[in-house]
């Protein structure tokens, strides 16, 4: 809980900081951005609602065990490819993603595969894309960003194969 409190303090502190800078540029600038930010918020609430509630249902039909099964001790590039798909399909937040990575590592999963899984999860986890990225960013950007990112879990796995274990 204290971590969440720290995040909130940092977050609202940053808002206060940039708000102060805007205010010193003149009250009209401050009021305009305040109105702009509030309008963005109002426009985004329905989409966040769809994301939060929606990803809950999607997560419920992709149980964790399915993902863990995909991350078996399958080595080689097929294993990496499976890990990338598993990373994108992992439901839930960071606790679940990293826990699955740890379980895979302890139960004999290859290190490059686990790296590919963690990187793919960071880049594509569907719940984060649906819940956060699509509501806030232009949709064209999100799809473009995801498409361009596809090679990188594979590249990370390749680097891991070359430089070896931690």
């Amino acid at each position, binding site marked *: 809980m204290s971590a969440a409190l720290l995040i909130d303090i940092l977050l609202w502190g940053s808002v206060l900081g*940039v708000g102060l800078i805007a205010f010193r540029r003149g009250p009209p600038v401050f009021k305009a951005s305040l109105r702009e930010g509030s309008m963005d918020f109002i426009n985004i609430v329905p989409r966040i609602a769809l994301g939060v509630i929606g990803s*809950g249902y999607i997560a419920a039909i992709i149980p964790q065990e399915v993902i863990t099964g995909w991350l078996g001790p399958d080595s080689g590039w097929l294993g990496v490819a499976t890990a990338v798909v598993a990373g994108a399909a992992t439901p839930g937040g960071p606790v679940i993603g990293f826990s699955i990575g*740890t379980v895979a590592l302890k139960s004999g999963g290859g290190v490059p595969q686990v790296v590919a899984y963690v*990187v793919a999860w960071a880049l594509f986890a569907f719940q984060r894309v649906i819940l956060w990225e699509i509501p806030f*960013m232009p949709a064209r950007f999100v799809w473009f960003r995801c498409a361009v990112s596809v090679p990188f879990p594979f590249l990370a796995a390749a680097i891991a194969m070359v430089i070896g274990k*931690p």
Partner: protein
Amino acid sequence: MSEPSPNNPAPAEDAESAPRPGRIRKPIGWSTIIIAGLVAVSAALVWRRDGTDGVLDILTHDLSLFGGILPRVLAGCLLGAFISEILPHERVSRSLGPKSGLMGLLIGTAFGAILPGGPFTAYPVASALLAVGADFGATIAMVVSWTLIGYGRAVAWEIPIMGTDFTLWRIVISLPLPVLAGALGRFVYVRLYPKPDAEDDET
């Protein structure tokens, strides 16, 4: 990046004369429709498996989650709006725009790595950067850097769960990826949308 610029009062005038391009698009787009469809199918599958109680359980859990997230979303929106108002547009498009080269990708990467907070700050701020003149490449570098080498998630979740050794090693492996992703993004974008922003070149 955000150093004060006392000798540059232009942004204030700029903000009043020209309306800022809308950062958040129309409320219903194709992505929203696809997600809504996916959600409807998933909810139906949950209903078939767990009955009405299962559907309601998830609904109440997610509604409370939603209530908890809302203040942070508001903070993120305000942060994005203030940042896009106070950043000097022409300087942003010079240092993060299509012509910013490797330096722009490095700045985007550094910015993503030091940005505090979670997705509720990263995406509104990235969206604000896009609106004030950053190109897709630099913004991709920023988003990818935030997600792969940003300290926030690593400190809060990855180190406690996966261990310090794995996390640091994974971050070292990830170091080149944001710049490469941004460069690939720029490379593809120019070929996909070949029409250059001619009016930007003149400034």
